[in-house]
C-alpha cells in the first residue's frame, strides 16, 4: 500500500477573492497538489456538518509548484458554492485530489486551441498557462454572457494568455457565440489541430461538430454532480457512444476530460 499517496489534504486558504460578480478565486497553500495536471479537479468539503452533505468538484485553475500553491476558480451556483464563497483567509480547506484525468497532449508542438464558455475557462486557463510558460503556441477563445461577467484582460495577460472574446450582448469583443470564433479560425487555418473545450453542454456539442468537419482532435471537460469523486459510486456518469451502444462512463474517473467525438450530448 502506497501510503505516501494521500487523498485528503487540509489546505490553508491564503486568499478568497471575488474576481467578477459570483466568481470566486481561492488561493491555497497545497504543496501536495501542485503537480496536478490541467483538467484535474479536487473534491472540496463545504462544511464540517452534514448539510450540505456532499463535497463539490472544483477544477484546478492554476498551480505554482515553486510556491506550493494552487488556485481554484468557481461560480456560485447553489447553497454549497455559496457557503464556499464565504470562506476566509486563514481557514483550512479540506480537499480530495488531484482527481480525474486532465487534458492530453498539452506538450505537443502543434498549436492548441482552447475554447471556453463562461466559468469553463477555469481548467483551460491552467492548460494555456502551462503552454505559455514553455512558449508553445495556442489560441484561447472565450465566450460569456456579458463583458462585466468575465475577468479583465490583465487576469489573463499575467500568464501569457491573450483571449479572443465574444459576449452574448456584445459588451466586450464581438457579439455571438464562442463557437463562431472557432468556426472563423478553422476556415482560415488548415493545419492539423487539437481543440480543448470546457463550457455548457450545447456549446461543447457545437465545438465537437466544428472539430469533426475540420478533422481536428477534440477534448472536452465535462461537469457533473458527484458523490465520491473517485469512481466508486457511479453517480456522475455521462452517456457515450460505444459502437452502436450507449455506455455510461464516470466523469470523475474516466474524465472529466473526454474525447469529444464519443460524448452523447443531449440534442
Amino acid at each position, binding site marked *: 500500500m502506497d501510503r505516501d499517496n494521500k487523498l485528503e489534504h487540509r489546505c490553508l486558504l491564503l486568499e478568497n477573492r471575488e474576481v467578477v460578480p459570483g466568481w470566486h478565486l481561492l488561493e491555497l497553500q497545497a504543496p501536495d497538489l501542485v503537480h496536478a495536471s490541467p483538467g484535474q479537479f479536487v473534491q472540496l468539503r463545504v462544511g464540517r456538518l452534514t448539510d450540505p452533505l456532499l463535497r463539490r468538484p472544483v477544477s484546478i485553475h492554476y498551480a505554482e509548484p515553486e510556491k506550493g500553491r494552487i488556485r481554484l476558480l468557481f461560480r456560485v451556483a447553489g447553497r454549497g458554492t455559496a457557503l464556499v464563497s464565504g470562506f476566509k483567509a486563514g481557514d483550512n480547506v479540506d480537499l480530495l485530489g488531484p482527481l480525474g484525468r486532465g487534458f492530453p497532449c498539452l506538450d505537443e508542438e502543434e498549436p492548441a486551441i482552447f475554447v471556453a464558455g463562461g466559468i469553463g475557462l477555469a481548467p483551460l486557463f491552467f492548460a494555456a498557462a502551462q503552454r505559455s510558460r514553455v512558449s508553445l503556441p495556442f489560441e484561447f477563445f472565450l465566450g460569456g454572457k456579458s463583458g462585466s461577467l468575465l475577468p479583465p484582460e490583465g487576469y489573463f495577460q499575467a500568464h501569457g494568455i491573450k483571449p479572443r472574446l465574444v459576449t452574448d450582448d456584445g459588451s466586450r469583443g464581438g457579439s455571438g457565440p464562442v463557437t463562431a470564433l472557432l468556426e472563423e479560425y478553422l476556415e482560415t487555418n488548415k493545419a492539423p489541430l487539437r481543440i480543448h473545450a470546457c463550457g455548457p453542454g450545447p456549446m461543447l456539442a457545437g465545438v465537437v461538430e466544428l472539430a469533426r468537419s475540420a478533422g481536428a482532435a477534440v477534448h472536452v471537460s465535462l461537469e457533473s454532480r458527484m458523490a465520491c469523486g473517485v469512481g466508486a459510486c457511479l453517480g456522475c*456518469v455521462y452517456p457515450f457512444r460505444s459502437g452502436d451502444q450507449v455506455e455510461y462512463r464516470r466523469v470523475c474517473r474516466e474524465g472529466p476530460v473526454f474525447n469529444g467525438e464519443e460524448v452523447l450530448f443531449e440534442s
Partner: protein
Amino acid sequence: MKAEPQLALELAGIKMNSPLMAASGCYGYGFEYAGWIDLRDWGAIVLQGTTLEPRQGNPPPRLAETPSGMLNAVGLQNPGIDYFLREVRPRLGELGCPVIANIAGESVEQYRELAAILDGVGEICAVEINISCPNVRCGGISFGRDPAVVERLVSAVRRVYRGPVIVKLSLEAGDLAAVGRAAESAGADVLSLINTLKGMVIDTACRRPFLGNVTGGLSGPAIRPVAVRAVWEMAGAVAIPLIGMGGITTLDDALQFILAGATAVAIGTANFLNPHVARDIKTGLRRYLDREGLHHYSELIGAAGSALHRR
C-alpha cells in the same frame, strides 16, 4: 499493562479485524480507493452489486443532494458476472481484507445461478443477496416484500452456495420482522439492513422530476434514526447476527447500531465525505472501549436494553 480492547470478530465464519464494513454500491470493487486508503481499516468490503448480464444502469442525473442525505439512482450499473470473474476476481486478493459479493437478479433462478457461479470462488468469503434495491424495475425490492418469496429465494441460494449467505433487506418490506424470519428460516446466516429508502426530488425550475430515473434511494444521516429502529426491531425478531447500516458517519452513530443489536456495521455515504471514516471510527471505538473499561466491542451488542432480551 492493560490489554488493548479487541475489535476482531467472526461473522458467520467471516474473520474480520473489526466490525466495520464498506457498504455495497458505495465502494465500487474496492480498487477505486485502494491507491489512497489502507483497506485493512475495513473488517470487510461488500462489492458493488453484480448481475448475470452487464447492466447499463439508469440515465443521468443519478444523484440529488437532500438535507443531510442524498438520493442515488444508479440502477445496478455493472459489467456482469463473466467480466467480474475474468477481470475483477483475480485482483481481489490485492485489497488486503475480506471481500463479500453482492448479487442481484430479476428472478429466483438468476439469484440461484449467480450464487452457484460464486460458490467455491476463493476470493469471495460470502455473498450478500440484494433484495432491496429501490432503483431497478424488475428484481431488487420486489423480491424483498413477500416473506414467501424471500424464503424461496434464500433457500434456492442456500442450496447452491456453501459459504455464508447474507440477506440485505429494505424497510419497504411491509412486515420487516416477517421478512427477516423468512430469510432466517430459509438458511440465511446474516441479515443486513437497511438499504436506501425510495424518494424523489422535483426540479421546480423545470417542473419535472430531477432524477433521470424519477425516483432514487435515500441514504446518509437523514435515514439513520429509521435504520436504528429497524435494527432494534429485527434484533428482537431473529437470532442470526445483523449488519446495521444507514447514515453512519461518526463513532456515536456506529455505537447506536451496535447497541441496538447489530454485530457489525456498514458505512456507505459517509465515505464520500470522509474517505478515512473507517480508520477514524475504528480508532474512536478502541478509545471508547478503553475509557469504558470494556475488553471487546461485542459486550455492547444489543446492550441498549434490547428487544433481544424481551423476545
